[in-house]
């Protein structure tokens, strides 16, 4: 264990620790930050009202929209001189969100990953190939520093260039890889094409998989065909980045309770549920300096388990994310909201009101096909014009979504009409 004091703390003691941290956090934000002060005043709550851990329920929720509305820096609670890094993600309607970190924020993120990677069974003897994107995405740099902290050797491979990734993995005898589940599938397929016998030629023992939903059946398939152990990792940019891994018992990611407090809400009534019940995940980051998150609605549907784990850790474990309480799609690891697609389409004058979003998985990759009805006046007798229109729509979608979408042009009346709530998304992928 990397930090046995936290990792084996009895649950009652965890709650006391979290209460003290919460009280301090609320005090600080109420006293020194205008944004949070105004929020608490509007919700008619002050630090004096926080007298138990349960009193967190008096605090208002935060939403992704808050990050967009306050883009880029109106929610930062640290001075510019204290901020040492930004990460960015693209957001709905082309409006991005920006997250900021102080030196301490980076330190806790790295510390969380040091505990997590140790729980996943990695040591200073391991070589971790980090095949997450480096740069604005949090995955690459997060895993990179976490693995370095435990003394593992890091191969900062980044994304793409699959043949070279496989050659490096083989040449350097990488024992672990961190990537998306769909990229691991792609690696497996490419290896086969290159004539690599995975179990014979590779030294890989572990795969740390996250950033998009995956399933137990995918785990079984990877483990069987590659002879490795697959570890789920959870964390989003609002929390810092990927932070929480499963231990070798593979019973859901261990949450580090000094860093994040978890609540689960009944999605219908909004009532806070007891551990073990499935609902909407709400997170409070207890240590963040540059960008605190208090009762942030993740929109992920999951549950958490506070029973001590067979690995000896007592910290709560999240179960698999089984869905979203909003309509966000995760396509090839990128978050896509149907509203983003609609916003993009409706700004193209030749496009009519009706569209359909089809998501499928073909072999290794998610495929996004957007069908659009064109307006009669946009029709041309020249095939060249029609193909150019399709290319224009594809380019706009690519620009706003950061992901390639195929466009199919349809005649008016060709796509389904909806009387009540429109069901424009057809996602046939199995998770």
């Amino acid at each position, binding site marked *: 264990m990397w930090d046995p004091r936290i990792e084996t703390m009895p649950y009652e003691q965890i709650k006391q620790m979290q209460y003290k941290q919460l009280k301090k956090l609320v005090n600080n934000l109420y006293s020194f930050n205008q944004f949070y002060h105004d929020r608490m005043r509007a919700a008619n709550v002050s630090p004096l009202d926080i007298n138990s851990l349960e009193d967190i329920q008096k605090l208002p929720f935060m939403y992704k929209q808050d990050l967009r509305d306050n883009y880029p820096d109106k929610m930062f609670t640290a001075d510019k001189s204290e901020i040492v890094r930004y990460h960015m993600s693209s957001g709905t309607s082309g409006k991005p969100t920006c997250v900021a970190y102080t030196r301490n924020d980076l330190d806790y993120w790295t510390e969380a990953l040091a505990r997590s990677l140790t729980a996943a069974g990695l040591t200073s003897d391991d070589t971790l190939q980090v095949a997450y994107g480096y740069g604005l995405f949090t995955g690459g740099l997060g895993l990179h520093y976490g693995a370095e902290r435990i003394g593992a050797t890091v191969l900062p491979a980044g994304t793409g260039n699959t043949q070279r990734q496989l050659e490096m993995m083989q040449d350097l005898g990488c024992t672990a890889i961190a990537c998306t589940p769909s990229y691991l599938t792609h690696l497996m397929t490419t290896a086969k094409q290159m004539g690599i016998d995975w179990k014979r030629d590779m030294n890989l023992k572990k795969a740390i998989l996250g950033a998009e939903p995956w399933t137990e059946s995918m785990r079984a398939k990877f483990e069987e065909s590659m002879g490795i152990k697959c570890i789920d990792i959870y964390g989003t940019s609002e929390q810092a980045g990927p932070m929480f891994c499963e231990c070798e018992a593979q019973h859901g990611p261990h949450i580090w309770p000094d860093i994040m407090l978890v609540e689960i809400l009944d999605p219908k009534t909004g009532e806070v549920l007891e551990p073990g019940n499935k609902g909407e995940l709400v997170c409070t980051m207890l240590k963040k300096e540059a960008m605190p998150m208090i009762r942030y609605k993740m929109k992920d549907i999951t549950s958490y388990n506070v029973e001590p784990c067979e690995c000896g850790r007592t910290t709560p474990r999240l179960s698999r994310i089984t869905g979203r309480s909003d309509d966000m799609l995760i396509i090839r690891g990128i978050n896509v909201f149907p509203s983003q697609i609609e916003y993009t389409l409706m700004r193209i004058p030749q496009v009519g009101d009706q569209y359909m979003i089809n998501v499928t998985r073909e072999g290794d990759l998610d495929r996004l096909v957007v069908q659009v009805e*064109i307006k*009669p006046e946009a*029709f*041309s*007798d*020249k*095939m*060249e014009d*029609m*193909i150019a229109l*399709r290319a224009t729509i594809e380019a706009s979608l690519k620009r706003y979504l950061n992901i390639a979408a195929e466009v*199919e*042009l*349809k*005649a*008016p*009346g*060709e796509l389904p009409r909806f009387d009540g709530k429109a069901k424009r998304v057809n996602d046939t992928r199995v998770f």
Partner: protein
Amino acid sequence: MTKRISQLSIFVNNAPGSLAAIATILKDCGINMKTCNLAESNEFGILRAIVDEPSASVEKLRAKGVIVKETEILGVKIANAPGSLIRPTGILGEAGINIEYGYAFTGKNVEGVFMKVDDPDKAVEVLSAAGLEFIDDKEI
């Protein structure tokens, strides 16, 4: 003689049964296609047709929800014989006029080629000057 032919272009989805559906609408509207040509991409096609009373036909088809566009094209008389296409296309090429698409036609009274060009006025001028004749829609 107008020297121009009116053509209807109809948007057709590229899926089994789509063309039959359009053909049924044409029949219901009492529209006869004298000649037609089909261009296709992956998911849609363009049916180009020469019909009687094109403007009235467009109204009828639009009322049925069909995407249709009326376009003026040129019909150039050429013999149904090897090498006959060389002359008109050569003349247009020399005049720097681009042919966007075209298709051949062989009827009872007339034979020739229909072409959509990027500069129809100039095309009429250079082809007439070379002594080529145009198809009149009454001949089709």
